[in-house]
């Protein structure tokens, strides 16, 4: 068997094509971005080596700082919302539900499979105020709260929150299913024993369940974090970064800079920043996993 499994030709055939594609189209571009980030202008047009000047000018770029702030707010709210509400949902499934577990799980998971753009279009109609009221406003209107009717995604004060609500709505079911699986893995006698010892409600959760769920909470945090750092599709589909940049994320700003204003070098710096935040943040979250 050893000989068969050490067949050099087969190994080359199995690995090389994928290796080449992966290297050329995923790894190389990342390194290339790093190289681009040291230049100004775009290739063939004012292409000049500027060293770390691009990085320095980030700090005085108001638009960049704004996008960074928006992106950070979004990360914090959406990650907490997705991971937190997912956990709450899973606990409800486990302790409150007696019947219809499968059906409810199926229903709650449903939004996860929808295309982001479709969800964005749907929610933009839910939040709509012109030319006619969307779902939310017409509800508010009909239950007598017409003073709350407002252009939810048309004003700076609410646009980002409206976007967060949408993204939490989409992914909450996903995390709840992951947690639910983990909760089922916790043996019933552990919970029973804790209950006999007088542990219930909050302290049961805090002292028994949460420590046992810790690895999965970390995984969910990393997953949700790396998804929210990339913030692009949903914001583009719902608000297109508006109004006035209130929902413009780092990725969207990078896209504008490099493809609309054609400043490839500067755009690459932002791309590198996104990469660093993503890797750095995930490593930071994973830190909490090791010590026991």
């Amino acid at each position: 068997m050893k000989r068969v499994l050490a067949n050099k030709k087969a190994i080359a055939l199995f690995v090389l094509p994928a290796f080449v594609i992966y290297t050329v189209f995923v790894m190389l571009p990342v390194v290339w971005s790093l190289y681009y980030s040291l230049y100004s202008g775009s290739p063939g047009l004012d292409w000049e080596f500027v060293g770390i000047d691009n990085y320095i000018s980030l700090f005085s770029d108001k638009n960049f700082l704004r996008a960074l702030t928006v992106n950070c707010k979004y990360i914090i709210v959406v990650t907490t919302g997705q991971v937190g509400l997912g956990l709450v949902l899973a606990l409800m499934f486990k302790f409150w539900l007696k019947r219809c577990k499968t059906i409810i799980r199926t229903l709650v998971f449903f939004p996860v499979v929808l295309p982001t753009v479709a969800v964005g279009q749907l929610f933009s109609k839910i939040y709509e105020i012109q030319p006619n009221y969307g779902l939310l406003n017409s509800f508010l209107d009909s239950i007598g709260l017409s003073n709350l009717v407002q252009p939810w995604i048309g004003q700076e004060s609410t646009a980002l929150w409206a976007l967060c609500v949408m993204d939490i709505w989409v992914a909450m079911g996903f995390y709840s299913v992951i947690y639910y699986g983990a909760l089922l893995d916790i043996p019933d006698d552990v919970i029973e024993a804790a209950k006999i010892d007088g542990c219930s409600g909050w302290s049961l959760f805090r002292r028994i369940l949460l420590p046992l769920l810790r690895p999965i909470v970390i995984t969910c945090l990393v997953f949700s974090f790396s998804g929210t750092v990339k913030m692009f599709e949903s914001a583009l589909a719902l608000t297109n970064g508006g109004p006035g940049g209130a929902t413009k994320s780092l990725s969207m700003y990078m896209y504008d800079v490099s493809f609309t204003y054609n400043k490839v070098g500067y755009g690459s710096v932002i791309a590198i920043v996104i990469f660093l935040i993503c890797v750095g943040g995930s490593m930071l979250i994973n830190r909490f996993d090791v010590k026991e």
Partner: protein
Amino acid sequence: MKKVKSGIRGVIIFLLCVIEVYPLFWMLTASFKQQSEWTEKPAYALNDGFYVENYIDAWTRGHMATFFKNSLICTVVALVFIVVFATTVGFAVTKMNWKWKKAVGRYFTMGIMVPVATALIPLFQIYSKMNLLNTRTCLIITYIAFGLSLSVFLVQGYLRSFPDDIMEAAVIDGCGIYRMMWHIVVPLMKNAIVTVLVLQFFFKWNDLLFSMTFISDSSLKTIQTGLLYFQDEFGGKNWGAIFASVSMSVLPMLVLYTILNRKVIEGMTAGAVKG
């Protein structure tokens, strides 16, 4: 007292389900509404009848037919390659004997961390130099390349617990490596392959960033990019057609999910739990 408590719990869970599902239900009813229904009645009202013209409008005038075809071609071709590559690479780095297998395995999974945005600009330059912008080829290549990391990772995880005895028996019976792969390993890996397929199908079908960057020719646009510019084409007023097209783009997901819901949930969450 206990009854009241469980009653309240039931109501909360019911409300949650409504929150998760009602928007979709609303979308479906809205896609059958006529223009006049929007102005005459509140938005939450049910549709008066089934105004199918919305769908016809979206399918023909809105070019949904073209977008559907493009998405389907790109997704399916990319999926075939991803599955083939993921199984062969995954097998080579877990079960075969060679010097660099650990390093190569790690190299492949490293890509899970790479944000798509970071690679976007150089990719655009590469494709523009190769004259591949505005072709399906460049989309398919990108889809394959960015689908590999997670897929290889999942296959690896699955193969680690794959029994060596079966392979041993196959070798003793005179199987070469290729026949063993095709007749023994692949059939036993069906579950892992379905997981990869489901997960990657959702990712590729939902892709927006790549297709909007690399494709500007409207006859090659995929469904997500198409949807995004729908509003411009129909104007903000034709809600019926917009809802019809959104509903259509959701349809493949809906069908797949209803048929395979357990597999889909397993597949989509596998990426997170094992990641």
